[in-house]
């Protein structure tokens, strides 16, 4: 695997190896390894997947197959303030679509994208268990309830000078 020469620093390489080792380099633990790795790096780019594959002695294709199967894993870095809009049924019924549209318009990005300045990213979630507050929006860990399209501006403003 001489191709692993880009981007990954020695220090990061060791961190990935440590994570794999903490799961005994077992192939059956792949998902747990990926969880831990993403927790640390924030996302799972191809280069990281290659290291994991090598450590667990499996093909990169298998690792890639698993990463892309599960929506929790991402190959793109998220923004500094990840915005998640709940599009679960309760939120949908109460107009989450319009709220999402307004975020897309104001940030000028699509779902799954990050603003060019790396500040905001947009994703959809399914039911965060706060259906009583529908429609629900999360920015990082902070929950906003009963969000209306007009409220979008105010939410974004909160992070303007952060």
């Amino acid at each position, binding site marked *: 695997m001489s191709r692993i020469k880009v981007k990954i620093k020695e220090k990061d390489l060791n961190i990935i190896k440590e994570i794999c080792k903490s799961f005994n380099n077992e*192939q059956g633990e792949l*998902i747990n390894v990926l969880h831990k790795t993403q927790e640390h790096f924030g996302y799972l780019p191809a280069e990281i997947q290659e290291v994991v594959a090598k450590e667990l002695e499996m093909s990169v294709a298998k690792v890639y*197959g*698993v990463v892309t199967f599960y929506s*929790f894993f991402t190959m793109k870095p998220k923004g500094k303030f990840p915005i998640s809009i709940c599009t679960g*049924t309760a939120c949908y019924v109460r107009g989450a679509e319009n709220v999402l*549209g307004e975020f897309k318009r104001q940030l000028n990005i699509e779902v799954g994208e990050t603003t060019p300045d790396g500040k905001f990213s947009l994703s959809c979630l399914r039911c965060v268990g706060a*259906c009583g507050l*529908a429609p629900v929006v999360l920015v990082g860990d902070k929950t906003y309830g009963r969000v209306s399209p007009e409220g979008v501006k105010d939410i974004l403003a909160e992070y303007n000078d952060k």
Partner: protein
Amino acid sequence: MTKYKQIRIVLNNCGVIDPENIEESIARDSYMALGKCITEMTPQDVIKEIKESGLRGRGGGGFPTGLKWEIASKNHADQKYVVCNADEGDPGAFMDRSVLEGDPHAVLEAMAICGYAIGATKGLIYIRAEYPMAIKRLKIAIDQALEYGLLGNNIFGSKFDFNIELRYGAGAFVCGEETSLIHSMEGLRGEPTIKPPFPAEKGYLGKPTNVNNVETFACVPIIIRKGASWFNKIGTEKSKGTKVFALAGKVNNVGLIEVPMGTTLREVIFEIGGGIQNGKKFKAVQTGGPSGGCLTEKHLDTPIDFDNLIAAGSMMGSGGMIVMDEDNCMVSVAKFYLDFTVEESCGKCSPCRIGNKRLYELLERITKGQGVMDDLQRLRNMSNVIKDTSLCGLGQTSPNPVLSTLDNFYDEYVAHIKDHKCPAGQCKDLMKYFIIAENCVGCTACARVCPVGAITGEKKEPHFINSEICIKCGACMERCKFDAIIIK
């Protein structure tokens, strides 16, 4: 009115105890049932009790739990597994999460009881990574139970060992399906496989595995403590006990409720739910999530149980219950669920992978006013093929939202196609916002709230919406106090 009362069996301890303190659970009889099983009952006795209780799986299918345990107990192997399905993928439901966060010991105890009954010493909880609080509480609960000797080796001084580990999901709805869940626990892509073999024969790592839902497990300890004959007096003839629902949507009181099986939809929506918000008219209630259907006025007096809901064209599902009012477009609702299915289909078999996508496209065409009448028959035919030929439960049930809305709201489909109108005023492509000049007093409220500056007009003069710019967000209409803005 006693009939309408909620009964707390599953949610008995939720919100009452501190879930991070095992002593509070024990003070409310936690692990008493496990003790009773191990010291006074044989595994066969336990299975018999669960069978007699009439308990059926709360994960959606309604399979008799006692029978499932019996099958697993009869398959011999050096190692068997008890798996708790805490994947809870239905988008609009959070019953299992509440149980795990509010009363984790009930689930741990029940898994140990199941282990004793079927002869397994290992338990696994497959939980969504999106539930960090539930994960934390479970970890604490497992540690405390180990410390108290209520899990681990030689439980209650007997020869029975039982250990529980957590496994994390990673955001794939199909992983709630049991074969897929097992593959996911093995570190693979969570793709379903054909049954048989059932997990009870060949499950996790090829060993006999008993999979039950969180809420199913949560019923077990109380059945052992109070007896099957206590439990089977609650509910209907074929569906015993209670069911927890996550009531949401356009009702006044939203949240978790627990009602005896046999309670009617009307009681749930109008008595417990307090009726429809803002005095609007009830239109439909969706049960069963993406696998279920939309029920209407005529089903309101149907007693809720597994079989009645299926007969009505929906299903119990895991317990999401979404109420819709006259402003919800049923074609859009069907499209919403299909969108979900298309995204969550694992892609292994073509009826589901391709068929659902085609269904979605047809629905999209209709909501844009580009449908033709033949599309309705096409929707039906394709739905039936997908149901009949898909490999797993996801594809086998995914057309239900389409079929049930076609059955119950046919006219609404026709209105989209023939009149290019969305009667509920939800389909954006079919509507235009418009200000009635006579009603408009020129207060400028709408112009100020419009996010795209589509509204113009002088103060105290009638305003005007430029439909070229308008993005149809509806904000202006909500703001206008003079009913001057309408949708045409």
